[in-house]
């Protein structure tokens, strides 16, 4: 199948006059970012504990959405199994938690765990393209889900973990506000790393593969290896999300590898249509729709999520992509 699944080619073919690009002042994104950051940091003092834990969940999903975006936004491969690596990371972190409660160590271990799992399964996944890639990653994710039920510590009941310690010498974080701030700091850190990744030559090659794979091959690169590297990186980011997930819930179960989590991450990445910030915003939006608005509507969060997916499918997403592409990508 030769169909390109990324929204970005359509976005780039629609003309974007230079004058419109310049109509957004340079300082505006910076100011908006600063306001958002200040709001995010100040959140624990503004809202109740329930909303704070929701916000922390939103941040975890934002990290997972970035992981999905590395694949779909850069390499043009839509993954529907990223939750599997989140679960692998969470179980790794839970295992480490029996030794140390130090958050950063759990985070590193989970990242490594997710990356290793992605390296093994990626050998299969990167052979497929387009819809087949989606089907294969979906199958892999569900197989990991099934394997977790059978093999993981705690079985289908899951494992409980002690509260995480952010830095040596600090007390364990029990109150949701502190957990939220820890997750926020980690998310920002991962965000900076991803931002660097997106600006690298590696990312340029990935975008080249998404648009025309033989072209990149003919310039002397091995697309399969580059895609595997991207898959491993995405798996690592998803694993990091797993460590953050147990910091928030202090609990991991095979349900963390469920298809619904993967689908949410992919949908969030598609809302972002190529942009990492957009993917994070999409993830927070979807979590808000599923948990917060769903809670208001007597627990019908799943229906709301389904409606979001339908909306996403039928809305002209290319317009949205055009909007994000107006912020110029890095220039050589």
């Amino acid at each position: 199948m030769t169909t390109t699944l990324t929204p970005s080619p359509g976005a780039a073919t629609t003309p974007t006059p230079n004058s419109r690009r310049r109509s957004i002042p340079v300082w505006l994104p910076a100011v908006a970012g600063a306001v958002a950051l200040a709001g995010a940091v100040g959140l624990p003092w503004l809202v109740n504990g329930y909303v704070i834990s929701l916000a922390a969940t939103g941040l975890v999903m934002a990290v997972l959405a970035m992981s999905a975006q590395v694949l779909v936004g850069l390499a043009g491969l839509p993954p529907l199994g990223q939750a599997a690596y989140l679960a692998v990371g969470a179980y790794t972190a839970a295992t480490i938690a029996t030794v140390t409660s130090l958050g950063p160590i759990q985070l590193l271990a989970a990242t490594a765990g997710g990356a290793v799992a992605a390296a093994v399964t990626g050998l299969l996944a990167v052979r497929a393209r387009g819809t087949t890639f989606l089907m294969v990653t979906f199958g892999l994710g569900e197989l990991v889900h099934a394997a977790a039920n059978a093999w993981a510590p705690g079985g289908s009941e899951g494992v409980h973990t002690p509260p995480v310690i952010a830095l040596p010498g600090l007390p364990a974080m029990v109150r949701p506000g502190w957990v939220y701030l820890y997750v926020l700091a980690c998310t920002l850190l991962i965000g900076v790393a991803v931002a660097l990744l997106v600006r690298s030559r590696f990312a340029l090659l990935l975008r080249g593969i998404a648009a025309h794979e033989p072209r990149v091959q003919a310039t002397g690169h091995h697309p399969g290896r580059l895609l595997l590297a991207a898959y491993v990186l995405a798996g690592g980011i998803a694993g990091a999300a797993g460590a953050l997930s147990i910091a928030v819930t202090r609990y991991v179960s095979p349900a963390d590898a469920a298809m619904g989590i993967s689908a949410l991450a992919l949908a969030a990445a598609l809302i972002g249509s190529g942009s990492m910030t957009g993917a994070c915003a999409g993830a927070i939006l979807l979590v808000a729709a599923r948990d917060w608005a769903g809670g208001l509507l007597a627990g019908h969060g799943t229906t709301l999520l389904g409606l979001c997916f339908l909306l996403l499918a039928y809305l002209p997403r290319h317009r949205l992509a055009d909007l994000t592409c107006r912020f110029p990508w890095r220039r050589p």
Partner: protein
Amino acid sequence: MTTPSPHPNTNSPLLRLEGVSRSYGVRHAVDEVSLDLHAGARHAIIGPNGAGKSTLLHLIAGTLRPTAGRIRYAGHDIRRWPPHRRARAGIARTWQHPALTRPLTAAQNVLLAVPGQRLAALRTDPRAVAAAYQALTQVGLTDHADLPAARLAYGDQRRLEIAVALAGRPRLLLLDEPSAGLTTGEITGLTQLIRALPADISVLLVDHNLDMVAAVADTVTVLHHGRHITTGTPTDIRDHPDVRRVYLGATPTSPPAPTNAASACPHPTGAPVLRVRDLRAGYTGAAVLTDITLDVRAGRVTAVVGRNGAGKTTLINTIAGLHPAGPGSDIHLHGRSVAGLDTRARARAGLGLVPQGRRLFAGLTVDEHLALPTPHPTRARTVTPRQVLDLFPALAERRHHRPDQLSGGEQQMLALARALVAAPDVLLLDEPSEGLAPAVISHLAAIITSLANRGTAVLLAEQNLPLALHVAHDIAVLDRARIARHVATADLRDCPDQLHDLLTIPATATA
């Protein structure tokens, strides 16, 4: 520029093919081709459709592996090297259709190919940027460096592709149909660009535009049915008797019968069944056909001839509705416009298609192929599969065979039979003689003539000029996206040389 070859033996060729073959089952796309390419050469490969030119380029670039033979490049046997390794060794290439990463800017496209950059680099190496801009300057695209590739004009996209190839500092540049879809002015620019390439880059190009080939290449190789016919200077090739034969097709074994269709036409003044007016069509911005006007009358065979890449297949597919027609195009069938109808409705209205490459349904038996089309109940003429099979006795014996179990001739007969079961009023035949033995071509000619005698209007797109002259009542010559001439066959049969210049290498090649 002095180019000391890294290899000790400076006289050995840069690229040497030794008996290279590529076969798909029984079909040999490339059959034992041997070729030497010396450093600094400007070598062209020409040949009619299906000659294996592009396949040969794929074999050298590594996107296909040869089934036999050896490929030596700069002293190494690269037969088993993957494409990216060959690219790193200095083999750069372009594709038939512009292969660009369309969302990226022109400069980014070129930067992808500049070697020696670190993967993790966050800031692009200034030397790489300088190299990229140098490549853009070479093709004259510096002004558009910051435009996304998708927004460049088609001709600029082709030049950008060459810039991408040049940015890899190649020693061997493979160009696949670089002039396809370009205007005459753009082809002149491309010719100058290739001529101005530094002497340390060897160029191997495949092209249909023989004027350009003559102007660019110092050596020309002619392929036919995957086989090497001859290699020589453009002048040698022009005068080579085998080459003319290759381009004009095998003469049917039987000479044109004196009582052939042209003189015994039952509908001499039949009203046109199919009228094509101002038809235009193109691919990704490149115009392939402009202002095509054509009438096909009941009981008559109209042949469209032209060089490879002249747009014959696009014309047939556009009439059948498989390719979108440009604005203003008008196609009338029985006086009713079908331009707004989809492919299926056109088939129902009486268009029958025998496409290029046959396009049989893999996995379906002969019987199933013939059971699929159903004539429209409102149509007067009806045909049963049995009647059609009577025309093709060879098929009748293979009713339970699948396409891959049939010979090339039988496959063509099946494609023809599939179209005839629907009892079409207009039969569109696209290169029916491609890849067939002379005896089968004669049989085909007889069938086409008998179909016309029964009142079917036939539009035949054909490269095989003797076949076209043999069966057609009138011939339209397609050249540079338009119909250059449209004449009665009788006027041509006496002096077929009139057409030869339009179909083979022109005698007045631009020097």
